[in-house]
């Protein structure tokens, strides 16, 4: 067991990601109480999880707390990993549950977003034109204004590097719904860009 008062720098891990690392084996070591394995796991997945949680919550401090809770859940529950999904999607699913618990007070808003998220898009229109004309910085800003469920699906697909079936597993919805939600998110993004363009 480590000395809890040891210099923080001594327990700071900065090495680059090792692409050959076997995440499942890593979880096995974590399950046996291997702190170095936990540090490696955090190094490999922490930033992605933080990015996804921050995208959903929009609050840095809250996001870091959720990541902390997520890693604690990994530390305690590594032995429960059954290998039925990728480790990345498993830890993101944990983070999603932690986020949901923290945001429980916003349940009504979440329901609204969930309803809106899967409405079919109206097809090509001014939203597509707005996207074609948009600059990256405008898109980045517009994503911040999307509904939580739209930000979430965009983050899982483009930020976390999960496949569509993995995203479906994390969100506990069919792949077809992931696709429609993704399309709806892009349409909503175009709508925000259109509104911003009209206000300029």
């Amino acid at each position, binding site marked *: *067991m*480590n*000395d*809890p008062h040891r210099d*923080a720098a001594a*327990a*700071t*891990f*900065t090495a*680059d*990601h090792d*692409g050959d690392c076997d995440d499942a084996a890593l979880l096995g070591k974590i399950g046996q*109480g291997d*702190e170095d394995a*936990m*540090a490696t796991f*955090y*190094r490999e997945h*922490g*930033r*992605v999880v*933080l*990015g*996804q949680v*921050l*995208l959903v919550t929009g609050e840095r401090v809250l996001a*870091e707390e959720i*990541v*902390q809770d997520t*890693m*604690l859940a990994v*530390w305690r529950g590594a032995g429960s990993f059954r290998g039925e999904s990728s480790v990345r999607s498993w830890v993101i699913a944990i983070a999603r549950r932690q986020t949901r618990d923290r945001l429980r007070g916003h349940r009504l808003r979440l329901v609204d977003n969930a309803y809106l998220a899967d409405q079919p898009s109206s097809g090509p229109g001014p939203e*597509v034109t707005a*996207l*074609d004309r*948009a*600059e*990256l*910085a405008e*898109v*980045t800003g*517009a*994503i*911040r204004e999307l509904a939580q469920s739209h930000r979430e699906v*965009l*983050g899982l*697909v*483009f*930020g976390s*590097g999960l*496949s*569509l079936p993995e995203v479906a597993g994390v969100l506990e919805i069919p792949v077809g719904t992931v*696709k429609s939600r*993704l*399309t709806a*998110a*892009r349409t909503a*993004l175009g709508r925000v860009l259109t509104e911003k363009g009209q206000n300029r």
Partner: protein
Amino acid sequence: MNTGHADAHLDLEDLIAEVTGQAIADRAREHLTRCEHCQLEANRWNLVAGGVRDLTAGLPQAALVLLGGASYGISAALAPHASGTELTAVSGCVTLEEATGTLAQVNGTSLVIKTASGQPVTVTTAASTFMSLSGTLLSDITDGATVDVRGSSSDGTIAAAIVTVGPPFSAVNPPGLVAVRGTVGDASTAGFTLVTSAGTRVPVTTSGDTLVVVPHASLGQLPAGATIFAVGQAGPDGTLSARAVAAVRQLPAGGHLNVSFRSCSPSSIAAALALGG
């Protein structure tokens, strides 16, 4: 994945796979190289992905400090930097980096360029990577080729300043020049006859100053030794996953590429790189 007719557009799964660097079927990849509709869709998703990455990828990772093995805190922020020293940030485009050098070799869908310091940089490409070739490429103007000619007109003859080979590319459209589209006939080193869709035959003269642009070039068209400018996302191993590549053959003596983007959008980058800067 779309496994239907060979000419069917890419479905959402293919487009997302392409944008996120996952494998797509050869049929889809081949379709993407020639389908403007699908390229536009890929560009739109690329832009969305870029926005997400802007929001998530640049986060400094907090340090994990284990405290007694049972709990931990997240403390001081670190500032990781994954890219190699041969890549430089694109001003104003948070997620993009660039590399410049001469083309040393092509390996499949990757190319290796040698930078001014002599260091090799591997640039990986995908079907959605915009790739242009430009220079005094008069040999690329052959009979039957579809071209856009831009130049000055006198007595019914156009002195070509820019000839764009292949599909229309509106970005190559400097003001003040006459523009005519048609098919090349009677090609020679001195010029050619441009046959418009209406059947009109327009004499075109070319010279060593005529800039020939192939906006949608393939890797196989890039000649060894060409000056390469690539822009894209840096990989953890120092490679560059290219969003766009410009190859310039026969750069004037003492000349150098000076590329600037109006914005970070794919269309803006493509416009800047179509002319090699």
